[in-house]
């Protein structure tokens, strides 16, 4: 019992401390943030995603620039912009929508300046010193022979556009849509006959090509792990392929086929030594690709679409479309899983080299960026709008800068304070620190231990004993009550024909007392039956050596219901030589019966002695 009580007390104290702590935490959080708001441009008008932002030391002078591939309106005005500090210093127009931007060191020439690679459509556009340098197109895919024959016939005007459309439509039923050329897809969308004829004429002299579309681009270091070592470009395509392309000669070094369309590719290792690539695909699976085998293998199967995948050391961290945030080993075993409060929009890795830790930044739909170090939430950054793209790295001369492009097109730049501290434990989730604090609980005494042991060992027996005694007590109470009823020893009559109630009060201090008897007929009033109690007398039973009572017999009148009758009796205490006290019993008796109807025991007060004047 004692043990339970202490536990309850403990719970109460802890909960009160917890409430106090959480309110303090919130106050503290508002007071100081770990981030400086360096720049906010609400009308920057960027439309881009995390894959299209990168930092690069474009001039090799240690002043890192921000490279943003802007999707423009989504149809027009696609550009690649270079920002230095708060202003755009260079802008180049792109022909197609960019899908990714990355910076690559392509040669060993001094000063070391990287090239910027923009993936757009089926080609890689390489810029050096922000001038167009090279355009590389991915290898063409084979055209379906039937399709080639049909177009050949159309070009030689053996086939009119209508029959061509019918034939291509027929072909479409037996082959997947992705196996056709872009020309066929465009042609089949034309409804007007004249336009179709024009289309065929326009494309007559152009070779039929089947191109793929790049879905993601990243880099892999070639033979050395330094920051400015030569890298290869890794490209994922819409046709379920992953290419590794040499950045010096622009030739494909290796290509892989996987079961689904890769959307994010993460690479670890060196191309010449050993490497591993994790390709997160549209089917929610992650495939692993290795150096020595061209076969892809399913590594992780996830329940929902992958929004972001980041690798921290040997762990893969996923943000999914169903608001889950989980961590897996590279072998596909789940380590932890968290639920996020809002939809994930973007993710980024925060690699803080000066402090030596890596964290994952998760941009959420509620305009927050959460910083997770392993599974601990270590910081929350409040942005002015929903983040669309995040990028953490060295910008300008500042090592830990977070650039966020917001859904409104705004650009927000935040700098991590020099004094920022990220504790290992989580400050927001899980039990508060106070729970680990020891309470000052008194030491267990020997008695307490003995009692607890006894209670634990003989619990059943103790309970049974208690129940047995309780039943016995109830029985004895019932027996006494019954006896009282049977012998009319109570001041209430149990006779239904003559329900009476008797009470008595004693007045005076002695030796003469007045006893006031109150008698009530408790029968319910009814109009046709008066229910009068008649023929009753009151008798007294007492010790005649102590008291004398006048009158000895009290003749009662007919008692009407619901009226209390009061009768006075004079009692004289005759044992005046000593202080006397006794009980007088008053009995109401019906004439002609032996058994009393009601009995009342009146204990008399101590009588004063006779005062002789």
């Amino acid at each position, binding site marked *: 019992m004692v043990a339970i009580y202490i536990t309850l007390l403990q719970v109460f104290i802890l909960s009160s401390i917890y409430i106090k702590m959480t309110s303090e935490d919130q106050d503290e959080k508002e007071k100081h943030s770990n981030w400086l*708001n360096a720049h906010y441009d609400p009308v920057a008008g960027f439309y881009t995603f995390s894959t299209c932002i990168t930092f690069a030391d474009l001039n090799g002078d240690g002043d890192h620039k921000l490279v943003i591939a802007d999707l423009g309106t989504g149809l027009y005005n696609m550009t690649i912009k270079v920002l230095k500090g708060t202003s755009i210093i260079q802008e180049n127009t792109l022909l197609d929508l960019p899908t990714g931007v990355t910076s690559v060191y392509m040669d060993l020439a001094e000063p070391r300046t990287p090239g910027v690679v923009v993936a757009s459509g089926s080609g890689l556009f390489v810029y050096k010193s922000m001038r167009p340098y090279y355009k590389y197109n991915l290898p063409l895919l084979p055209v379906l022979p039937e399709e080639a024959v049909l177009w050949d016939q159309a070009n030689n005007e053996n086939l009119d556009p209508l029959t061509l459309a019918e034939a291509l439509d027929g072909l479409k039923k037996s082959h997947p849509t992705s196996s056709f050329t872009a020309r066929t897809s465009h042609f089949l969308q034309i409804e007007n006959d004249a336009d179709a004829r024009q289309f065929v004429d326009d494309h007559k002299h152009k070779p039929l090509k089947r191109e793929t579309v790049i879905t993601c681009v990243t880099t892999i270091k070639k033979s050395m792990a330094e920051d400015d070592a030569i890298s290869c470009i890794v490209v994922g395509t819409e046709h379920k392929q992953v290419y590794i392309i040499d950045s010096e000669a622009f030739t494909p070094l290796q290509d892989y086929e996987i079961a689904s369309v890769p959307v994010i590719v993460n690479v670890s290792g060196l191309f010449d030594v050993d490497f591993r690539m994790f390709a997160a695909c549209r089917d929610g699976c992650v495939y692993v690709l290795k150096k020595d085998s061209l076969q892809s293998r399913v590594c992780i199967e996830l329940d929902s679409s992958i929004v972001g995948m980041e690798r921290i050391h040997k762990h893969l961290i996923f943000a999914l479309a169903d608001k889950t945030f989980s961590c897996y080993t590279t072998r596909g075993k789940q380590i932890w899983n968290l639920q996020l409060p809002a939809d994930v929009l973007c993710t980024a890795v925060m690699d803080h080299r000066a402090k030596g830790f890596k964290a994952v930044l998760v941009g959420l739909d509620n305009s927050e960026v959460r910083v997770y170090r392993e599974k601990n939430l270590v910081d929350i950054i409040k942005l002015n709008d929903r983040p669309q793209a995040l990028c953490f790295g060295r910008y300008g*001369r*500042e090592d830990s800068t977070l650039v966020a492009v917001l859904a409104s097109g705004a650009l927000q730049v935040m700098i991590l304070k020099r004094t920022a501290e990220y504790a290992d434990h989580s400050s927001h989730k899980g039990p508060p620190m106070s729970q680990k604090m020891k309470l000052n609980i008194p030491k267990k005494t020997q008695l307490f231990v003995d009692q607890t042991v006894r209670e634990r060992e003989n619990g059943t027996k103790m309970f049974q004993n208690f129940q047995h005694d309780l039943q016995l007590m109830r029985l004895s109470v019932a027996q006494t009550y019954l006896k009282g009823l049977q012998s009319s020893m109570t001041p209430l009559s149990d006779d239904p024909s003559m329900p009476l109630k008797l009470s008595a009060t004693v007045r005076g201090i002695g030796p003469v007392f007045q006893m006031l008897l109150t008698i009530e007929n408790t029968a319910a009033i009814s109009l046709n039956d008066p229910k009068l109690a008649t023929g009753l007398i009151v008798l007294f039973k007492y010790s005649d050596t102590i008291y004398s009572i006048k009158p000895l017999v009290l003749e009662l009148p007919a008692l009407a219901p619901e009226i209390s009758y009061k009768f006075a009796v004079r009692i004289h205490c005759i044992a005046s030589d000593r202080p006397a006290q006794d009980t007088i019993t008053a009995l109401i008796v019906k004439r002609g019966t032996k058994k009393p109807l009601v009995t009342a025991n009146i204990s008399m007060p101590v009588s004063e002695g006779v005062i002789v004047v």
Partner: protein
Amino acid sequence: MGLMDKLFGWMKSKKKTACILCIGLDNSGKTTIINHLKSPESSHQDVVPTVGFNVEKFMMSNLVFTVFDMSGQGRYRNLWEHYYKETNGIIFVVDSADKLRMAVAKDELDQLLKHPSVAAKRIPILFFANKMDVRDALSAVKCTKLLGLESLKEKPWHICASNATTGEGLNEGVGWLSEQLQTLRP
């Protein structure tokens, strides 16, 4: 012998000395400013990022300045506070062309002002809004605003736009500083 000569020289002239701390973010031009203030024959030609700190001595308007030219790189900034105690004046250099890091400069300044050994003393602070020659550099007034200097009431301060490579604005600033030092320590 050279050292002894110098010592005797001091004894004779009994010139006042002032210990000055020169701080600011990396690449703001602290070393270049100090180089320019020194006599031309002893100044270096090319300036490289300072590692740790340099100590320079020079004379100006009857005062001997001992300047601690601190490194502004992030990893060396925690050295600054160890010199706050002995200093008589502070030169805070801001790169007025670096709008982005003005927030960082403000943060460092706030930390400086909050430090107990600075908060307790009435130290004059001289701000140089350096690199005024760069095309879209901020004006001294704009720098004042961004650094929140209007609310700095408890210390004498002064801001000058400067160009450390040509020396523009430097003498004005140091003139103010020596004036302050002489009035504060009669």
